[in-house]
């Protein structure tokens, strides 16, 4: 299982060196990957149907509790089969769809990565591992959605998708970590056993909220739905893959996976039913106004996701089984519809349903696929969609929240009416009617393009005619995983004449009527787009823009590119901190007895120093300032002489002389200072610097008035001669006691010397002035 999950990652890495090969006919090898994985997972069906599950454990980061724990049970298998099965069709299709594309290899790299990530999500038994793969789907789908990266819209929608799903992922992580901390384990199969602890915990609503945010953003539930229509900028195979079977279903998977752990409470049921119910109705109505084929499909997908969320929220056995059947139904017909949209787009160059008609004359196999998918989505009897729809009505009618049952059924009926019409618009409308002249020379694409949708559509029909074998597996899949006990329900084509059948037929008839009445047009699209100003998307982009403005303002304030302004902020901050510290540490008490009386020559030296300091600060002449600087240095040197530091005096004298010489030699050519700043700025800087000086002085005063320990000094004094055989204690410290420090100091100086030397020798350009 580990290899199955990671194979896509490995292949996508291999594409980096071997990508060139892919652009030839060898690309067929790549389609073997999902096909083989599909066969691999199919081999598990008998065992899983019999009720067993498989575990695999490989150590990864055990110290953090993150291991490669994979678990294959019914729910995982259903999703794994969808991912690899639909994946096979997509891989075949995309091979032709993108033939000759410059980034053909790159595309398949992303696609393999994405498939791996999805398999990882549905197979992980460790919630942190699940999160890693969850994020990986967001990242790889970002690349897939933005695949046409020369298109600004495409880039923007990829970014929107990433930021919305990424935001959700952030909350999901928080929720998962909280969950793991409360339960003391990160393994899903162990979390189920601590269900009581989790439900009773104070943080349960918070965990639930975080988890929901993760699932809703991924599965495009209102109000996070808007990234999905935007993601239609992706190449069609990507839309087909992401939105029929994988990416958006990850949120549904998450909800289904966690319902035995967190589900069954009022919080869980009501939130999911309200959000799902609203989303499904909202999106279903919305889809009727679209004129872009992909737009219709995008909104009907959101609506279908709403239905799934709603069903999981209802949480009864009927609802869960309805959900799992509907997942399969929807994946089959939605992938088909997307793929035929891709063919239509590819061959005619438009996706506008107001223009497209009569294509059955030229694209016959495609139109058969479209027709089958449309009737499956409409839930015509004998199709798999019919069974799915039946189960949904049965679920809403039999909900535990009885007085609500009829309202919920009503919402479901309305949603389905919209979906019937939307399915007809996407799957039937382009093929019937009169063929416009300009499409007269449209021809059928390669077999590898129209075969995948046809196969998927026929599968939908076959599953509908023989629901028994599939139903057996799908029932077990959900019953075992989501409910924890096997179910005895059997899928049937014919339930007898009852209320569900009447509802189904009514839905169908109403849907067809809506299809014929509702003529989508650009005008209607315009009308509904006026509502955009109150749409959640507006709110989100508004927030995003505000954050951008804030960060821009903040950056300009603190990182404006002027060194002196950085200095000023650092100094001001330091002043604030130091002043605060001085303030809270109380008054300074001075011991005047410790103060020595300065002699007149000391006062003289200090006066000279202050005078030189004044000149350095104010002089416009560079030379004067350098000379004054050396005067300051010599005065400090004299202070060292007065106060028993002959070594310091010598060093200071040498260094000061050297610096001055260097300064004058190197910089004499520079122009004199010009006064470029205004009086106010000068006063401001003066106040800042003087207050800094005052603060430092006060700190010095405070520290000086504290007694100091002489222990270390005495140690050096006593041992300088006895241990190190030297009489100048300062020198002994430098070359003996702290010899290694001094050695590194010389290293530093040597590096500085090398730097100076190379800077002097460096010749950058001939134009450079010497």
């Amino acid at each position, binding site marked *: 299982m580990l290899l199955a999950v990671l194979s896509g990652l490995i292949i996508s890495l291999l594409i980096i060196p071997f990508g060139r090969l892919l652009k030839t006919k060898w690309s067929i090898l790549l389609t073997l990957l999902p096909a083989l994985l599909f066969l691999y997972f199919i081999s598990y069906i008998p065992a899983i149907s019999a009720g067993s599950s498989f575990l695999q454990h490989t150590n990864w980061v055990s110290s953090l509790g993150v291991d490669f724990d994979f678990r294959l049970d019914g729910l995982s298998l259903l999703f794994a089969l969808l991912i690899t099965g639909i994946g096979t069709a997509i891989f075949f299709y995309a091979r032709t769809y993108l033939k000759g594309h410059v980034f053909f290899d790159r595309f398949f790299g992303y696609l393999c990565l994405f498939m791996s990530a999805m398999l990882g999500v549905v197979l992980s038994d460790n919630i942190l591992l699940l999160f890693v793969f969850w994020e990986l789907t967001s990242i790889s789908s970002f690349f897939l959605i933005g695949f046409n990266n020369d298109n600004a819209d495409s880039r923007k929608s990829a970014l929107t998708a990433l930021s919305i799903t990424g935001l959700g992922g952030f909350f999901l992580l928080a929720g998962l970590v909280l969950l793991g901390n409360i339960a003391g384990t990160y393994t899903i199969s162990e979390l189920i056993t601590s269900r009581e602890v989790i439900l009773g915990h104070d943080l349960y609503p918070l965990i639930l909220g975080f988890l929901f945010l993760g699932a809703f953003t991924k599965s495009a539930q209102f109000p996070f739905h808007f990234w999905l229509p935007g993601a239609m900028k992706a190449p069609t195979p990507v839309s087909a893959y992401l939105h029929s079977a994988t990416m958006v279903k990850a949120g549904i998977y998450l909800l289904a996976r966690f319902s035995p752990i967190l589900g069954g409470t009022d919080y869980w049921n009501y939130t999911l039913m309200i959000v799902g119910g609203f989303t499904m109705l909202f999106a279903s109505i919305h889809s009727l106004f679209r004129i872009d084929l992909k737009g219709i499909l995008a909104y009907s997908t959101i609506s279908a996701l709403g239905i799934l969320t709603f069903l999981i929220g209802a949480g009864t056995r009927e609802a869960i089984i309805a959900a799992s059947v509907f997942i399969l139904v929807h994946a089959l017909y939605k992938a088909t519809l997307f793929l035929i949209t891709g063919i239509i787009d590819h061959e005619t160059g438009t996706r506008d349903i107001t223009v497209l008609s009569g294509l059955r004359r030229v694209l016959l196999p495609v139109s058969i696929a479209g027709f089958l998918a449309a009737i499956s989505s409409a839930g015509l009897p004998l199709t798999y969609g019919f069974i799915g729809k039946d189960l949904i009505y049965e679920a809403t009618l039999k909900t535990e929240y009885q007085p609500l049952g009829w309202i919920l059924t009503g919402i479901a009926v309305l949603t389905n009416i919209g979906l019937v019409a939307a399915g007809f618009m996407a799957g039937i409308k382009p093929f019937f009617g009169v063929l416009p002249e300009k499409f007269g020379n449209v021809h059928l694409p390669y077999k590898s393009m129209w075969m995948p949708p046809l196969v998927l559509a026929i599968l939908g029909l076959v599953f509908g005619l023989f629901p028994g074998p599939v139903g057996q597996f799908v029932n077990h899949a959900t019953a075992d995983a989501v409910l924890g006990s096997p179910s005895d329900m059997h899928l049937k084509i014919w339930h007898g004449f009852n209320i569900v059948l009447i509802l189904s037929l009514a839905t169908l008839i109403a849907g067809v009527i809506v299809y014929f009445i509702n003529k989508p047009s650009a005008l209607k699209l315009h009308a509904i787009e006026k509502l955009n100003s109150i749409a959640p998307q507006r709110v989100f982009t508004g927030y995003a823009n505000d954050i951008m403005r804030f960060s821009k303002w903040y950056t300009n304030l603190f990182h404006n*590119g*002027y*060194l*002196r302004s950085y200095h000023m902020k650092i100094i001001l901050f330091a002043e604030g901190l130091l002043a605060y510290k001085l303030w809270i540490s109380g008054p300074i008490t001075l011991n005047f007895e*410790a103060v*020595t009386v*300065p002699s007149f020559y000391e*006062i003289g030296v200090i006066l000279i120093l202050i005078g030189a*300091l004044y000149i*350095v600060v104010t002089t416009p002449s*560079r030379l004067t*300032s350098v000379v004054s*600087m050396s005067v*300051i*240095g010599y005065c*400090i040197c004299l*202070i*060292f002489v007065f*106060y*028993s*530091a*002959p*070594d*310091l005096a010598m*060093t200071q004298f040498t*260094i000061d002389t050297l*610096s001055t010489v*260097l300064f004058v030699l*190197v*910089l004499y050519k520079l122009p004199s*200072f010009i006064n470029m700043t205004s009086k106010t700025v000068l006063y401001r*800087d003066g106040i800042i*610097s003087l207050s*800094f*000086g*005052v603060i*430092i*002085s006060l700190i*010095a005063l405070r520290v*000086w008035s504290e007694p100091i320990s002489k222990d*270390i000094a005495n140690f*050096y*004094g006593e041992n300088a*001669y006895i241990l190190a055989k030297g*009489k100048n*204690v*300062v020198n002994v410290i*430098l070359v003996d006691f*702290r010899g290694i*420090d*001094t050695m590194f100091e010389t290293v*530093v100086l040597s590096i*500085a*010397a090398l*730097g*100076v030397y190379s*800077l002097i020798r*460096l010749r950058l350009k001939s134009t450079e*002035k*010497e």
Partner: protein
Amino acid sequence: MELLLIVLLGLLYAAGVYMILRRSMVKLLLGIMLLGSGTNILIFLLGGITKGKPPVIDENAKLFQDAFADPIPQALILTAIVISFGLTAFAIVLLKRVYALVNSDDLDDLNTPEEEDI
């Protein structure tokens, strides 16, 4: 004398800060040197200043017979002086290079390099 030195080091710090708030690169460097000198005085003062008693042991003795100035701040300052010279020397040469390249002493001119210099 201690109080005078405290005032003095405050002035050195103030002048240093004032200089690094200027636009000129040379002034920036002078400011850093002033801050360095101020710090040296600060350490020197806080180690306790003593007059006329250098930390050197007498010619014929093995131990100090008398009180002596604390050698530790002196060792620290000596290191500081030498290292700051390394910094100063490097900075001076660097300034010269920058001046040769941009033909300006103004720090603000470094923000927007002209096209041909990139």
